[in-house]
């Protein structure tokens, strides 16, 4: 056929830089650029099309929330310190409350100062039921008591907020696994979502967080917060490749209870591709 001139190196370099600046990481960025180069696009439009689809194809189309066969459905939120778990738990409760569901929030962070107070205020704002024990109570005991409570059991959806924990702390990871077991024993079949909350401003550490939490807890989904900041959460590209069975389900885009949305892969790719 006719000679096809290659697009200049700078065009690819600019896209690779954009991926790195978006926290995709150098390996993922290089991999995406190589896959595009191997397609030998002749025009910048074709190139951009390949770029967009290379990113978009990493995101699954089936990221719907999972509910139990009968109430209550129980979802756990967990993740590293300060990622946005407590706020997100309340946001999700508010989301479903405004759709007519009865929702409950369980304050299973018994460790951090005023964590229970914080969730109590948010539960009030969300119009949600609220269950807590005293600060310092055993978190598995909170789960057991909460899911034995009539009001909580009558909710359509119960979200359990947990203490921040680094994935590197084995005893804390074991504590979390025990909490999920306590839930399953107290309300068999109710626990349908194990959601890892990732700080959208994180860098490459998000990938090892996801892998470690997944190995220990079998994640059903990811929540990415703080996408209203300047960060782009490009680490999701690597996470989606390495943990294909764990879809992104929700994104947090601000500090009020309304600032939550089901994950929209096309909107996410728009934000990344520009």
């Amino acid at each position, binding site marked *: 056929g006719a000679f096809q001139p290659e697009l200049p190196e700078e065009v690819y370099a600019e896209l690779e830089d954009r991926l790195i600046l978006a926290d995709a990481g150098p390996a993922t960025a290089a991999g995406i650029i190589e896959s595009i180069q191997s397609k030998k696009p002749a025009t910048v439009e074709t190139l951009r099309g390949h770029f967009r689809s290379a990113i978009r194809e990493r995101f699954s189309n089936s990221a719907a929330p999972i509910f139990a066969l009968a109430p209550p459905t129980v979802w756990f939120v967990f993740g590293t*310190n300060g990622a946005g778990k407590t706020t997100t738990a309340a946001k999700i409760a508010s989301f479903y409350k405004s759709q007519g569901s009865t929702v409950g929030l369980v304050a299973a962070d018994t460790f951090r100062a005023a964590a229970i107070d914080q969730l109590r205020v948010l539960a009030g704002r969300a119009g949600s039921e609220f269950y807590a024990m005293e600060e310092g109570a055993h978190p598995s005991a909170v789960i057991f008591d909460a899911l034995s409570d009539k009001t909580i059991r009558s909710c359509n959806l119960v979200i359990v907020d947990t203490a921040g924990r*680094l994935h590197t702390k084995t005893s804390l990871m074991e504590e979390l696994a025990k909490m999920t077991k306590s839930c399953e024993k107290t309300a068999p079949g109710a626990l349908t979502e194990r959601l890892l909350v990732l700080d959208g*401003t*994180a*860098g490459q550490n*998000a990938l090892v967080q996801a892998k470690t939490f997944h190995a220990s807890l079998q994640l059903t989904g990811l929540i990415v917060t703080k996408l209203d*900041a*300047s960060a782009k959460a490009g680490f999701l590209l690597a996470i989606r490749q390495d943990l294909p069975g764990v879809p992104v389900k929700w994104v947090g885009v601000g500090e009020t209870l309304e600032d939550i949305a089901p994950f929209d892969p096309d909107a996410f790719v728009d934000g990344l591709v520009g």
Partner: protein
Amino acid sequence: ALNRRLGALFKKIRGQARLTEANVMDAVKEVRTALLEADVSLAVARAFTEEIRVKAMGSEVLYSIRAADAFVKIVHDSLVKFLGGAVAPFRLDRRPSVILMMGLQGSGKTTTAGKLAAYFSAQQKSSLLTTLDRSRPAAAEQLEKLSKTAGVSYLRTAGDAASSARAAYEEAQRRNIAVVVLDTAGRTEVDPAVFAELRAARDAVPVEKKILVLDAMTGQAAVNIAKGFADEVGVDGVILTKFDSDTRGGAALSVYHLLRSPIVFVGEGETLDRLAPFHPDRIAGRILG
């Protein structure tokens, strides 16, 4: 780890008497990748690896039998030397000294305010804590509980940032308290209007240290964050939190490169005793994996 990757790279050229410029370029690419994997900002990774390339071309690493180790040593030493500038004694000269805590949502400001109070207590210095955060639910309760744990004074304030800062400053003067720590609400740099509140506090009382509290796992956004706070309010020092994770902490390099203000402490845990001095060699080791 960079050591292993350079080892694999130089293994292929073991027969050579010296490294060529092309060999150095290949090694420098690996250094750049390592820095980016460690969350060093793109611009800083580039600037740093160019420095390394020049150093390597002018050094004995070219003739070294153990080229990989020698190369890693150049990188490690350069990082330590550069970050050495970020070490400075945390001196407070005023009375009361006012410290203003600022940073992104969830970075660890409130906890670190408590840690600072505990740190001063250990030096027989009294502290007074108050929060200017009027938005986060139970922000005041959280700081008050931490103050109690640290055994330091807490002032309940209400109203805007300037009047609350003034109330705390005057209370410290009245009671001859050495340090005032002003906790503030988390904010992102995206909307510059949010910084007005911090400027109001800064201008209401003599603030000795404006401290940026930064999560050690922050990615490429670290530079934008630091620039926002520095341009809009001013930054005298940085505290890197959650350094007890396995994050490589490259944000520290990027932020120091931009601000050139000291990294005054590192947060290494959730309890109030987990505040440590910043050690350049430790972070250099982590960045290089």
